[in-house]
Structure formats: structure tokens, C-alpha cells
């Protein structure tokens, strides 16, 4: 029993260490990451934006792929309102070769992504945000010089069939903050792929 308690404590400790990252209400840091077109992208490059739909996503994960068209739709609907999508691939290309920068370029071209698709090459941004899976959305709202986290979670509540999703979390969250309200829910869980970390 003593050993068991120790084991539990250790496991709880490792879980809490893993659970670092942003919560709703936190200030999010800007980043500078390379886009598939070769340019470096930062949120500071968008002086007119009211916020950002940051989506940690990738090529290989079937859940990310299932949401590709919905990411495009989100950008097309909300970039004109001041909330562009920035897609960030957090995966290491040695751990998951399908998520290499050149494969990202191919996929972005095939799907005609209207938003930047950038690589978190040294795997620091996803850790700072606290992304645990792909796809994982962080909706940010600009307040002065700050980017405030307003919603964390899934795009909607049906990964397999967009037509059957009756809760469009990101869309509802943007509508809420546009009305000056807090999103409800401001946090959702969803099935996704673990982030593929470089083995040292």
C-alpha cells in the first residue's frame, strides 16, 4: 500500500508537470515560426487583427485531416471579421516523417490553405501554450498589446461528420466575444493524436 501511494504520487506529479500551459484568461505569447511559403510569421504581423484562431494541427493525424475543410471554412468566415486562422504543426519530423516541412508544403498546396501553416521547429510554442494533441484550438483576443486566451479545445462536437456537429465551439466563442460576452463553453476536450516529440 505504501508503494502504491508512492506510485500514485509519482504519477500525479508527472501528470501535473505535463499539465503546464495556458488556461482561459491567460496572456498568450507571440511566436515567430516559418510558414510553408518560407516567410516567418508572427501575430505582430497582423496589426488589424482582433484576435487569432491558433490551431495546433498536422498532416498525419486523421482527426486533423477530418477537420481540414472546417479550418478553411473558419478562416474564410472569420478572417474578414478580424480573426484569421494560424495553423501550427508541433510535431517532430523524425518522430513523424509525414509532418516534415516539405510534406507540410505539399499538403498546404493540395488543399489550398488560405491561412499560414507554420512549423514549431524546436517544439517550444506548443509546450508554452499547453497543446496536448492535434487538432487543438486556442482562440485569442487582442487587448491592447496582449493576446488573451478566450477558448481552448475542439472546433466542434463531431469530428467524423461536420453536418452532424450541433455545437460549433469556435464559431460560438468568437460570436460571444464579439458581443462582449465570455464564451460558454470556454474549454472542451476532444479525441486527437498525441504530439510527436523528438527522442533525445
Amino acid at each position, binding site marked *: *500500500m505504501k*508503494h*502504491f501511494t508512492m*506510485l*500514485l504520487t509519482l*504519477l500525479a506529479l508527472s*501528470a501535473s508537470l*505535463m*499539465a503546464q500551459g495556458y488556461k482561459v484568461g491567460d496572456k498568450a505569447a507571440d511566436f515567430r515560426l516559418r510558414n510553408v511559403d518560407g516567410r516567418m510569421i508572427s501575430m505582430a504581423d497582423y496589426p488589424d487583427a482582433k484576435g487569432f484562431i491558433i490551431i495546433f494541427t498536422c498532416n498525419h*493525424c*486523421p482527426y486533423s485531416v*477530418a477537420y481540414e475543410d472546417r479550418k478553411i471554412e473558419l478562416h474564410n468566415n472569420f478572417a474578414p471579421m478580424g480573426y484569421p486562422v494560424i495553423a501550427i504543426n508541433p510535431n517532430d519530423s523524425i518522430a*513523424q516523417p509525414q509532418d516534415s516541412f516539405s510534406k507540410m508544403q505539399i499538403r498546404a498546396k493540395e488543399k489550398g490553405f488560405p491561412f499560414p501553416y507554420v512549423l514549431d521547429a524546436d517544439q517550444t510554442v506548443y509546450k508554452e501554450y499547453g497543446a*496536448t*494533441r492535434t487538432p*487543438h484550438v486556442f482562440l485569442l483576443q487582442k487587448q491592447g498589446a496582449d493576446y488573451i486566451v478566450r477558448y481552448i*479545445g*475542439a472546433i466542434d*462536437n*463531431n*469530428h*467524423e*461528420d461536420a453536418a*452532424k456537429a450541433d*455545437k460549433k465551439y469556435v464559431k460560438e466563442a468568437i460570436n460571444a466575444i464579439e458581443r462582449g460576452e465570455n464564451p460558454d*463553453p470556454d474549454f*472542451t*476536450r*476532444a*479525441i*486527437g*493524436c*498525441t*504530439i510527436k516529440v523528438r527522442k533525445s
Partner: protein
Amino acid sequence: MNKHAVRLFTLIMNRLIVVLTLLVLSAWLFSGAGEKAARPVPTLTFEAFEPMLAKRNDTVYVINFWATWCAPCVKELPDFEKLNQKYSKQKFRMILVSLDFNRQKESRLIPFVQQHKLKAEVVHLNAPDANAWIAKVNPDWSGAIPATLIYRGDRKIFREGSYTFNELDAIVKQLFTK
């Protein structure tokens, strides 16, 4: 001469009967084995599956959430199979809960289970509204897979991420000690 012919005929008939019997027997055995290998993979809603997460008895339950498209899940499956074999004679039950897409159950999941000859029980979860149920499995789960819940009564251990055989074995051993 005639007597010799009769004897030969009887001998051949006897052999034929033995061979036929063997053929029928082996066909019956093989078909039986075939049925056993093709164990059904039921598709459940979360509500139907939920009781498996909180059984109040002294069995150790290992509930692993996986999918055929999830590389780290597939990588750790042999360790789960090994664990299942090791504790098969004890109060131990393993359920491999597949989160494969509904449209890929027949085209991917079933062939995968057959090809890999999975011995552990496999169920397919049809629960697209994930936010409604993930926290009910464990509040520490963000939804990434693999994820595994191991419990015996009130003692529960959950991890989002992969396990090695030794880690699994250590947890199960601890749970079996009162």
C-alpha cells in the same frame, strides 16, 4: 483369389473411412477455430460502455483507448497483449477500446484485429461528442490517445500517453497486492 480380393477391398474401405473421418473432423475443427479467431467487435455508445469504468469488485481492469491510425497506440499493443496473457488466469480483464471512425470499422478495424490476431477483448466506441464523455473516463484526460485507465475498485491509475510492458506490469502487480 476371390478371398484375397475381398480382403483388399475391406482394407481399402477401412482406410477410406479413416481418411474421411479425419477430413470431416479437421474441417469441423478448422471451422470452429475460424469462428473463434473472428471474435465480434461490438460497437457501443459511451453510455453502454461507461459501467466498465467503475466495476465494484476485486478484478483488475485495464482499459486502453486506441485506434488503428494511432501509431504510438499500435506500437504499444503487443505489450498490452503480453500483459493480458500474463494475467489471463487471474481476476483480470483487459478491454481495448477502439476510437476508429465509424465508417472505418469494417474496412480498417476488423481487418486489423484479425491480422494482428488480437486476443484481448476489443470494443468499438461510437461516441463522436467527445467533450461529453472524455472527462468521465478521467479528469486528467485531454483526449489525446493512447490513453489507459487501470483500476481495481477505488484504486485508479490513468495516463495520457504510452506505456512500456514493465510499467504496466508494475501497476497491475501493485493493484493485486491488497
